[in-house]
């Protein structure tokens, strides 16, 4: 029960976190009209994951291990690109808001509808295949025991609740801090997704060095503990990190964080009212 709940929590958080920040951002900048696009992206990702899982099953095929890992890895790296773009786009918006150009914001900085759909879709789709397969497995076992299925659904529910709390917390911040805090959080999330994608490519044998570990803290942070699950779900933190993963993580943070935090020409400090 607990184990399956943790799987649901981890997979759910990986998908829900970016979506919750995206929603908070749209709400905070008075763009509720864009929200349906977010849900459209999420819907497409779920439909594709379930569709592919079913189609493969019906065609009596299974993706080879390498294909599965390469798919996950490449999708993760594309997702990082989109999240990075979102971080800096938010920064630009923050600047124009602080410059009190709210009227001009709609035209100049409208996010393309496709980008919103794709970003929400990628956030969910990355782990969608694996989650869909897992759900089928759990549902099948429900013939003998419903525990795994219930556990998994509880985990997903907790993940959605956590994502909602993050959303609530985010929109209660004043606008300047909202941008800084969500931006920095997203940078660490994106770095984690990038490292995770690198690990997938290593498992597929596309990138060497799977057994060359930078550090191994799996005794201090067991991956099946609740805190290990949260770290994995939010930051994609892996207790056994390979050197290649560590390098891309550090390189990403070292480049993006200073760029994001460099002073704006106009300070984003507007009181919340």
């Amino acid at each position, binding site marked *: *029960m*607990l*184990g*399956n709940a*943790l*799987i649901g929590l981890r*997979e759910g958080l990986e998908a829900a976190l970016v979506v919750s920040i995206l929603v908070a951002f749209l709400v905070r900048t008075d763009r509720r009209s864009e929200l349906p696009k977010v849900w459209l992206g999420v819907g497409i990702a779920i439909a594709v994951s379930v569709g592919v*899982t*079913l189609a*493969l*099953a*019906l*065609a*009596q*095929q*299974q993706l*080879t*291990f390498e294909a599965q890992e390469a798919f996950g890895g490449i999708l993760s790296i594309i997702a990082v690109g989109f999240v990075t773009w979102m971080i800096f786009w938010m920064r630009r918006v923050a600047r124009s808001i602080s410059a009190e150009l709210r009227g001009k914001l709609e035209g100049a900085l409208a996010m393309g509808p496709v980008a919103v759909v794709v970003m929400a879709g990628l956030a969910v789709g990355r782990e969608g295949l*694996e989650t869909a*397969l*897992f759900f*089928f*497995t*759990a*549902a*099948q*076992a*429900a*013939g*003998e*025991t419903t*525990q*795994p299925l219930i*556990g*998994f659904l509880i985990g997903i529910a907790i993940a959605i609740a956590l994502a909602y709390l993050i959303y609530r917390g985010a929109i209660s911040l004043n606008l300047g801090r909202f941008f800084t805090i969500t931006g920095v959080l997203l940078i660490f999330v994106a770095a984690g997704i990038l490292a995770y994608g690198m690990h997938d490519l290593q*498992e597929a*044998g596309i990138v*060497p060095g*799977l*057994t060359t570990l930078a550090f191994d803290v*799996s*005794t201090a942070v*067991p*991956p*099946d503990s609740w805190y290990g699950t949260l770290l994995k779900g939010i930051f994609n933190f892996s*207790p*056994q990190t390979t050197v290649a993963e560590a390098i891309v993580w550090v390189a990403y943070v070292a480049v993006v964080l200073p760029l994001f935090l460099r002073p704006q020409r106009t300070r984003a400090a507007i009181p919340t009212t």
Partner: protein
Amino acid sequence: MSRTSRVAVLVTASAALAACTSTAPPAGDAAGAGGPIAVTAADDRCEVGATEAPAGTITFSVRNTGSKITEFYLYGTGGRIMGEVENIGPGLTRNLIVEVPDGGSYTTACKPGMVGDGIQAPFTVTGSATRSVDENTRLAEATTGYHRWVTSQIEALVPKTQEFVDAVKAGDVDTAKALFPVARTYWERIEPVAESFGDIDPKIDGREDDERDPGVQFTGYHRLEKDLWVDGLQPDAPAMADQLMADIRDLESRTATVELTPVQLANGAKELLDEVATGKITGEEDRYSHTDLWDFKANVEGSQGAVAALRPVIDEKDPTLGPVLDERFAAVDALLEEYRVGDGYRLYTDLTEDDTRRMAEAVDALGEPVSQVAAVVTS
């Protein structure tokens, strides 16, 4: 969830899973996969229902009877992951369907708690599913291994050539002379790779009397060699030095993405020895500096590097060839050691006819088994 929809999910899922386990056996593999191999994964044990299976598609049906989340892996040689299934929650059964083309020793592992190396057990795959050559794992490993080795040589070639080039540009003739054979060592080890990009080799390693298109200059190591040892540094020597460095950088970037075939490796190993016979033992290559023996040694090491990468394949297909190669390489190494002076070698001009005859004999004796490698790896 209502009763009816739960039933619907169940039916769909059962159908899906039933379909999953019955993957069609690959062509040419009459035996096919038997039923799925049942694996019982608990928190402290990992019971694999069978310890061997025929090559082709192998299905493991992994049931987690423990309380921790577990994972199941099938490892090939050197810890290569053949397949894995993650997120097997307590009470769940998940399938791993894995394509194993070659017979041999593999390892199964359950990882309760998703940590460490897990509970491992040997697993044997018998026979082999027919697969085309480039899909053959061993050959693929050989080419990636050789590519890694070449990359390591380039990583040394670039800074050493930079030092040499800097010395030339600073007009420091003695330092440049000392660095010349050292930088070339890395170049000569990987020359077959450079030759595979037709246009680079003549620019870096051309001789003065090579045929060139009109308007194409004599450039590269040997042009600078001629300045250092014979003519004195010419006014355009710094430009020539920069040109050499640019060509080496070009080689570096192209090598990063080059795809070599096992046959190219085997032929490269032979070409390097032919190079020794025609260029080094004759004193033709380093005609101004006479540092031919440095190049000789590097060519042999390059040949050895390619053969070493192919060695697992050679041993599998012709167990008698490996020991012969070892013995002949050792004989050439021992002979060259006789001519060692400090960190380097005796100059070509200090060799007698008897010396070069012995070298030619040793290289011919080595060339004979090396020339068989290509046929063996493609058999």
